[in-house]
């Protein structure tokens, strides 16, 4: 029991940290989440992490609700609740707090420095997320082709990401025979 509590506590701390430090949105948190639940603890395999992330891609609403599935795999319903609360509540409180203080923050000269300075950090974290996912997901010519074509299509025109995910899954299934 105390083992399980310790595990939930660690899930909470790690997911809250990942969400608060991953400026630049949800996928920027991927390397940290992978480090926590795969590399450091072996709670999930690379394969499971990749597949759970893929499940999240076809869910509606904000990205990264799939943290609930990670929590569920690691520690059941309690785990799902803990990962959700840790990933979404602290950052939401920060957002509301910052907005309420906005009038006082706005004239602060360092605000622009923070915005300018953190923008490339955020993109760097996103690239690290891409890199991690690419290492997990690209394992041969078919997956490389799917990823390249998806990138190219999205850079040229705006299509619904959902259709690309479904198309990628279908192509991969057909190729696998």
């Amino acid at each position, binding site marked *: 029991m105390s083992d399980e509590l310790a595990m939930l506590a660690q899930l909470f701390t790690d997911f809250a940290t990942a969400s608060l430090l991953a400026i630049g949105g949800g996928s920027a948190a991927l390397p940290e989440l992978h480090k926590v639940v795969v590399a450091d603890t072996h709670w999930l395999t690379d394969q499971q992490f990749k*597949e759970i992330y893929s499940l999240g891609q076809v869910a509606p*609403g*904000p*990205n990264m609700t799939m943290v609930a599935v990670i929590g569920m795999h690691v520690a059941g319903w309690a785990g799902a609740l803990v990962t959700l609360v840790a990933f*979404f509540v602290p*950052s*939401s409180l920060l957002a509301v707090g910052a907005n309420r203080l906005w009038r006082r923050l706005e004239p602060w000269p360092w605000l622009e420095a923070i915005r*300018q300075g953190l923008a490339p950090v955020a993109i760097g974290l996103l690239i690290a997320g891409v890199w991690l996912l690419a290492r997990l997901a690209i394992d041969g010519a078919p997956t490389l082709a799917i990823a390249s074509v998806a990138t190219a299509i999205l850079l040229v025109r705006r299509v619904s990401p959902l259709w690309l995910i479904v198309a*990628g899954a279908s192509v991969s299934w057909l190729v696998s025979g």
Partner: protein
Amino acid sequence: MSDGSAIAPPSLLRVARVFAVLGTTSFGGGVVAYLRDALVEKERWFDDREFVRLLELSQTLPGLNAVNMAVIAGDQLRGGRGAAVAGLAMLLPGVAFVLGLGALYAPYANAGWMTALLGGAAAAAVGLLLATALRLGRAQFRRPLDLAILLVTAFAVGELRLPLVWVVPVVGAVAIWLYRPRPGATGTQDAQDAGTPP
């Protein structure tokens, strides 16, 4: 708290409904377009200027843009309870859906067809993320200083696997210092770069 929101504030039920619809119908990177459509065009809770301010704040802060937008908007409309209602309504449909998928997936996790389907989905997701990063980072890729900060961050986290607790504060502090406010300089260079959105 009520600045920017016109006329009488909507009921909590209305807030819940609007964000639950958003949480059910929006997908991936397109959430911002859905948000603007609902909050500015349909409900007229915010004007365009206020929406852009909320969006920029949501993007600068950690956490997901869409969730940040929802709780900030909810807070401006109905205070703390509005924030909680908007955030929950936005997230719960997706959470229920993905948990359902997770339950369906678990028994077949080792089946060949499941591996093939999810492998293809993951590969497409790589393309999605890469395209998003390239699009969001257009301005940063063109400026050598930003490119350097970006590469250091990506290498430290993606390749060296250093924890964010170290990387973000250290690289972030250096980056902010490099962009520190200087007396006399009005930041015209940055204003020009920032002033060319699509």
